[in-house]
Structure formats: C-alpha cells, structure tokens
C-alpha cells in the first residue's frame, strides 16, 4: 500500500519538523517552555512541589496553544492577518504539550500505578475530561499532514479537525474543575475558549443569513 506508506512517512515528517523555516522556528520557540521547565525541575528551581509545577506548566501550555489555534480563523475573519499556514505547527505543539503533561501525570506523579490511574480516569471527572481532551487530539495530530488531507479528502478532514473545539472546551473545563474555589487563571482560559467558540457560532449564523457566493446566482434568478 504505497499510499499508506507515503502518508505514514508524511505523518512522521510533520510530527518531527516542518520544512518551512518559519514553522521550524515556531516548533523551536514553542518547545522552549517545556525544555526550560524540565531543566529548572532537574536543577531544583521549581519551588517546593516541582512535580506539580512541571505538570501544571505543561498542561497550561497545551491549553494556550489550543487557544492560539482557535484564534487563527476569527483573526482572519475580523480583518487580521491570515496565519492559517502556521496552524498545523501550533496544533501539533498543543498535542506535544498535552502528551508531555499526561506523561508527567502517569510516570512522575502516579509512578505508573496503572490501577490508580485507571481508577482516577473512571472516578475523577476532571481526569476523565482531561483524558477526553487528549484522546481527541490524537487523531488530529496523526492526520496533521498533507498526505492525510489528500487521503481523507478536504471535507472529511475538515469535519474531523472540528474536534479541536471539543478538545479545547474539555481542556479548559479540566483546568477549571481541578482547582479549589475559583481562582482567576483557569476562568480566564475558559472564557477565552468560550469566546472563540461563540465567535464561530456567530460566523455560522452570518453565513446562513447572508447567501454566500456560490448561492448567489440562484438567489438572483429567484
């Protein structure tokens, strides 16, 4: 199956590094918080509970990259620059951070105690929601390359990648649910995700209200 092999190779290529220098720079800069936090952790510069700080930092960066991905379309629609060609890199960064966050939780925090982890996933709604966010990102990461877009076809690929709405909402909810009381930070991220999803809903209503270009001849004839 040549097609499969090509798309697998493309998957690995895009999961590793893009060929575009700007994209490469995004990956390099994007991984800096992970590298620096891990370094600070190894050199005892993360405060009293380094594990939690590392876990939290990685999780927050995953959420930040998800939010940046969600912001790209509204930015263009509202007259800003079109950054859509960098969305894939930003989305993959979100996935990498989510994967690292999950790794710290399973390996460092829980010490690979699979029974405890499985119990957490079933019993702790915030962990259930967090796992859902991660699982949703997996197919998106695997299909984040040109070959997979060709294989799936643009429409199906686009439909699949709308799952990022679910991932971002679940990730924001996961953060709000795990804290005591109502500190500002998780609420701000949740508000950003809600606002960006709401904007999409408004765009959709506008599309329905105003006939688009393809529909216009029909409308003119009627």
């Amino acid at each position, binding site marked *: 199956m040549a097609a499969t092999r090509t798309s697998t190779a493309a998957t690995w290529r895009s999961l590793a590094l893009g060929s575009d220098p700007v994209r490469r720079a995004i990956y390099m800069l994007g991984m800096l918080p992970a590298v620096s936090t891990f370094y600070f*952790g*190894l050199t*005892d510069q*993360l*405060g*009293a*509970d*380094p*594990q*939690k700080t*590392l876990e939290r930092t990685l999780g927050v960066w995953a959420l930040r990259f998800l939010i940046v991905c969600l912001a790209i379309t509204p930015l263009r629609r509202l007259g800003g620059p079109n950054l859509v060609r960098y969305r894939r890199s930003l989305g993959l960064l979100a996935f990498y951070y989510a994967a690292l966050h999950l*790794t710290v939780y399973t*390996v*460092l*925090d*829980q*010490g690979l105690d699979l029974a*405890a982890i499985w*119990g*957490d996933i079933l*019993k*702790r*709604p*915030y962990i259930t929601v967090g796992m859902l966010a991660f699982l949703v990102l997996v197919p998106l990461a695997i299909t984040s390359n040109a070959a997979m877009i060709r294989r799936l076809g643009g429409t199906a690929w686009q439909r699949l990648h709308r799952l990022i709405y679910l991932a971002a909402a679940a990730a924001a909810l996961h953060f709000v*649910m*795990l*804290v*005591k*009381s*109502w*500190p*500002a930070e998780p*609420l701000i991220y949740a508000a950003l995700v809600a606002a960006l999803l709401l904007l999409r809903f408004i765009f959709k209503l506008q599309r329905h209200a105003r006939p688009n270009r393809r529909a216009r001849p029909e409308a003119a004839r009627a």
Partner: protein
Amino acid sequence: MLIRRPSDIQPSEITPRHQYLQRRQFMAGAAALGLGTAFATAGGGAANAAALQAGKSALSTIDEPLTPRKDITSYNNYYEFGTDKDDPVRNAHTLTIKPWKIKIDGLVGKPADYDLDDLIKPPGLEERIYRMRCVEGWSMVIPWVGVPLAGVLQRLEPQAGAKYVAFETVVRPAEMPGQRGLFQPLPWPYVEGLRLDEAMHPLTILAVGLYGETLPNQNGAPVRLVVPWKYGFKGIKSIVRISLTDKQPPTTWNIANPREYGFYSNVNPGVDHPRWSQATERRIGESGLFAKRRPTLLFNGYAEQVASLYDGMDLKANY
C-alpha cells in the same frame, strides 16, 4: 527520557536537626546581646523573625525528616494573600502583626480583648514536630513552636454549656490583597471550628513559631491553629477571635463547598475528596522532581492518640 529515581532523600534537601537547633541557640545568644533583629535577617529568616525558646515535647513526631524551612515558608495556602502557592510569601509582608489583639467571647468566664502576649506567654512554649497533610494531596513535617490550646482555653474558663470553639482570621483588605479586587475566592473572614474535646486534645496547639523562630506572616503570624490529624485548612491563620459556642460553628471551606469539605475534615485515606483520591500524598521537599507518593495514614498517623474522639462515629458521613 532518562529517569533517575534516587533511592533515598538527598541529604542536601533537609536542614539537619542539629544544625537548626544550633542555630536557634546561636540566635538566642545573639538576642541576649541585643543583636536579635540584625542576626535574624542575616540568618535568612524573615526580616522581623525573632528567636523563640521552646522546650521539647514527647508529643513530637521525631521519626521523619523535617521539611526544609524554605519549602515550609514559600509553599503556602493562605488565600487572603492570593490563591497561588507563592502568593503568600510575596504578599504577606504587608500584614501588621504588632500589636495583636484576640477577642475572646461566647460561653467563657473571662471574655475580653486580649493582647496576644497575655494569652500566650513565652515560658510555656513547646516545640511540636507534626506532619501536616493538605487536602490537596501533599504533606510536610513542620517543627512548630506553640502552646497547647487546652491550657489557653482553661484559663478563659469555658462554661458548662460550651461544646464548640469557633475561630476567625483577621480581615484587612488594605493589607491582604486576596481580600480586595474582583476575584475573591472565599467569603471573609475565614472561619474555622472544632468540637470542644478536639480543641482540648493535647495534640491541638496554638502555634506562634516554626523552626525556632516566630511565624513568618505567610504561615499565619502571629498566631495560628495546628490540629495535626486534620487537613491543613483546619489550621486557621492570623487568629483575631476565639468564641466558645453551644452550636457547631460555620467553617469557611464547608460554606464554600459543603459536598467537598466537611466540618470534621479528619485526614482519612479511605474517604476520597469527591474530585480526587486521598489515598496517597506527596511529601514536599523530598527527592525533587522524582518524589514518589507515599500512603496517607488514618488521622494523619495520629490515630492512636485521637481515634477515641470519634468512637462510634461514621467517618464517611462525618467527613
């Protein structure tokens, strides 16, 4: 990824006991020479930390390494100064702790506004080393300095009808950034309570210091409650009022979320927080990034001393 798991705690992470004890003696000497404040600052303590003379106690937990002072004083939950763990150490210096009055009222023979110095006198101070288990799943071992609450209450002469003790934290928005602005995580004042027999238990103390010095503000200066078999949030900080009552007093976290935080809040690995397990905990200051969780003990390991307080009580229902 290379993961090294040190087989033991790094010696560098623990302030050796003899070292801090030596330092305490040195500080006491310095204080006697009138050099107290200067040396306290030079010694790495808070700017206004003063040395305290305290006797040892047989009730101390001595078989576990102490959590380093820097962790105890930089990783705090004190929402009046902000909700992040490092907010209190950055913000708490603004709190004025001298003079400090505590209002004693309710069902006592001697209600009044007392000066802290009249309520807790230096000769009675004891060092009490206790485990501290936070409801969030982490723990420390802290060398508190304080007095048994029982002695203080007895001098105030509780009346026959008194069944509970209610505590209240200071409200000073001008000095406590968490008490002003848009995001206020809890209703103020922070209030806590104990059953009278819990309050009179020999393990329950009013702490005025740690590591042989007066409490840093972020740890609840000038006086806080320490109840080692309960989750840390029961240890109300910067107390300005103690009332004896015949009814169970309201408690802040129970008001904020009654399903998650009960009046008793005894450490219990068998009763999970609705959102997370309480079966294990991470000891702060232990092995850094690769610290392993340890099992949480019933009543935080003080079951032998305190379990009888709850004989016949359903600990799941009375969480």
